[in-house]
C-alpha cells in the first residue's frame, strides 16, 4: 500500500479527467432519499455525498440482475456462442462495506467454479473507493466492514482541505500519476486520517453481538416458536437477498425466439426467500415455509460462509433492514438470539 495526498482543487480535475477518458460510474441523486450508481457524463451529475443506494453498486455492475450468458442457433447443428461483456470501467465513490461485499463475491465466483463473466468484468473494473454516510440501520463495524483493506485500486478519504489516498494496485498508481498531482503522505496526514477514522466510526449507531451467534444459533435452531415469531410478517418477496451486496444466487432461463432457431440462456438474480427456491424435480419443496427459509438465510450468511471462507456473508450495510416491508431486522434478530439463550 502506498499513501499520498491530493489537494481539493486537484481532486475536481482528477475526476473530470476520469469522466472524459473512461466509462465512469458513480453515485447520482435518484430521488428524494436515494442515490444510484449510474454512468456519469458530466461532473455536475456526480454526488459523492450519498447515504442510501438500494442496489449495491459493485453487484449491479459485476453480476447484473439479468445477463445473457450464451446465444445459440439451432440448424442442422447447434451453434453456441458464449457472451462475455467486458469493457473497462471506473467505479467511483463506492464505500468500504460495499467494497467488502464485492470482495466476498470475488471469492465466491472463483471458488468451486470460475465464473468467466464475473471475472472478466471484475478484472476490468477500476475501483476508486470513498467513504459515505452510514444509515441508521448500518452495523458494518460489528461485521468488520466499515474499513476496506483491499479490493480497490484507490481509496480516497476526504480530510478538511485535502484527500488522503490509499493506493492498493499498480493500476491505481498509474492512474493517479497520469491524472493528478499528488504528494507523499506525511506524519501529519496520517494523524489527520486517524482522527478522521475515529470520528467516522462514531457515526455508526447500531451494534450487533455477532461474536456469540455462531454457537447460540444451534440452540435456537429448533425453536419453532422463535422462528415463527420472527418470520410472521415475511412476504417471501426476496427483497433482502436482492438488495444484499453478498447474495449471489441466480437462476438460468432458456429463451428461444418465435422463429424457433435463435435462442439464448439468461441468468437472473434469484432469492432463497422465494417459495419455489427449494422446489425440486418431482415436486418436492425442501423449504416450503417462510420460517424455514428465513432461518436458512441467516445460517448461510452468518455460519456457512464463516466456515467456508472465514468471513461472514454479511457486511452489515443494513439494506435488508431498510427494504423489508415486514420490518424483519437481522441486527435485532442476532441480538435477540443472544438474549433468548441467556435468559
Amino acid at each position, binding site marked *: 500500500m502506498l499513501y499520498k495526498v491530493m489537494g481539493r482543487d486537484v481532486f475536481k480535475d482528477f475526476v473530470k479527467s476520469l469522466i472524459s477518458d473512461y466509462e465512469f460510474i458513480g453515485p447520482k441523486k435518484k430521488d428524494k432519499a*436515494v442515490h444510484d450508481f449510474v454512468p456519469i457524463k458530466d461532473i455536475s451529475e456526480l454526488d459523492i455525498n450519498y447515504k442510501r443506494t*438500494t442496489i449495491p453498486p459493485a453487484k449491479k455492475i459485476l453480476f447484473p440482475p439479468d445477463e445473457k450468458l450464451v446465444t445459440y442457433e439451432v440448424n442442422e447443428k447447434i451453434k453456441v456462442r458464449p457472451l462475455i461483456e467486458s469493457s473497462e470501467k471506473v467505479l467511483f465513490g463506492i464505500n468500504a462495506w460495499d467494497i467488502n461485499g464485492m470482495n466476498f463475491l470475488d471469492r465466491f465466483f472463483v471458488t468451486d467454479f470460475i465464473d468467466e463473466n464475473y471475472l472478466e468484468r471484475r478484472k476490468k473494473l477500476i475501483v476508486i473507493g470513498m467513504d459515505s454516510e452510514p444509515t441508521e440501520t448500518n452495523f458494518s463495524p460489528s461485521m468488520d466492514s466499515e474499513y476496506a483493506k483491499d479490493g480497490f485500486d484507490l481509496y480516497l478519504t476526504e480530510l478538511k482541505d485535502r484527500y488522503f489516498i490509499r493506493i492498493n494496485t499498480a493500476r491505481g498508481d498509474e492512474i493517479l500519476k497520469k491524472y493528478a498531482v499528488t504528494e507523499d503522505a506525511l506524519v501529519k496526514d496520517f494523524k489527520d486520517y486517524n482522527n478522521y477514522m475515529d470520528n467516522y466510526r462514531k457515526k455508526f449507531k447500531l451494534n450487533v453481538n455477532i461474536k456469540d451467534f455462531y454457537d447460540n444459533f444451534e440452540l435456537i435452531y429448533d425453536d419453532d416458536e422463535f422462528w415463527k415469531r420472527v418470520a410472521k*410478517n415475511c*412476504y417471501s418477496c*426476496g427483497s433482502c437477498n436482492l438488495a444484499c451486496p453478498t447474495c449471489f444466487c441466480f437462476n438460468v432461463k432458456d429463451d428461444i425466439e*418465435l422463429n*424457433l432457431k435463435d435462442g439464448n440462456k439468461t441468468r437472473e438474480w434469484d*432469492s432463497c426467500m422465494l417459495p419455489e427456491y427449494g422446489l425440486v424435480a418431482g415436486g418436492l419443496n425442501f423449504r416450503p415455509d417462510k420460517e424455514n427459509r428465513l432461518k436458512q438465510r441467516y445460517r448461510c450468511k452468518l455460519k456457512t460462509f464463516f466456515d467456508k471462507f472465514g468471513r461472514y456473508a454479511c457486511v452489515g450495510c443494513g439494506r435488508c433492514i431498510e427494504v423489508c*416491508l415486514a420490518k424483519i431486522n437481522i441486527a435485532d434478530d442476532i441480538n435477540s438470539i443472544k438474549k433468548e439463550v441467556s435468559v
Partner: protein
Amino acid sequence: MSKPKVGIFGFTGCGGCQLEILNLEDQLLDLVSAVEIVHFTEAITEHSDNYEIALIEGSVTTEHDIERVKKIGDIAKIIVAVGSCAVNGGLNCLKNLYGVERAKELVYGDKKDWIDSIEVKPIDEYVRVDYYARGCPPNRLEIVDIIRSLIIGRKPEIPNYPVCVECKRNGNTCVYDFGITCLGPVTRAGCNSRCPSSGTGCESCRGLIDDPNINAQKDLLAEYGLTVEDIISQFNLYNACKKVIAKENKK
C-alpha cells in the same frame, strides 16, 4: 412439424389484450408464421372453428357468453386465459359488488329488462384453463412466452413470486418510501414491475401469488393510514371476484 392452429377470442372487456398482441410490432410477423391464426376477432375477417389453442380475453358476463365459452372449451385442446378479465374477472367484478340488478337500473333505468347481463365470472368458472397470462393489460412478452412454450412443448414459466422481486431487479426505490401504498408484496410478478417503475403503487391487476401474506399486507396498509374499507377497496379493484379478504377472514 405442422403449425398449431390458434384462435383468439374476445369476451367482455376492453379489447386491450388483443391490442397488446397487435402491439407486438417486432414479433407480430414471426408470430403469424410460427402459428396459424384461424380466428382473431380484432384483426382478421376469416374465422374458423378448427383450432387447438384458444386465447381468451374478457370475462363471462352474459348468458350468451356462457354458451360461447363452453363451445370454445369443447373445441380447444389448450385454453389460455389472457388478461385480468379472463383470469380472475378483473375490473368487471366491480359490477358484482354494486349488485347486478342495481347496476342495470342505474345505467338503463326502466329499460333494464332489455339488457342481458349476469354476475361477472372469470372464464375458469365455466371451462378448464391451462395457462394464465395475467395482468391488465397482460405483458405481451409473456403471451409470446406462453405460445412459444406451447409450440416447443414445455411449461411456460409464470412467476409465483411478488412484484418486489422485479422492483429490486430494476433497482427501483420502494414506493412506500414516498408514502405511496402498493400491493406489490402480495401480487404475482411478471409485469416487470410496471407500475412501481413508473412511480405508483401496484394495484394487483395480476392477482395474488399462491401463498400471499395477506395479514402482513393489511397491517402495512393500516400503518400507512388506510381504513379497513380502503384496504378492501384496494384489493377489490381487480380481484373482487376472488374475495381475497373474505376468504382470509374465514381462515
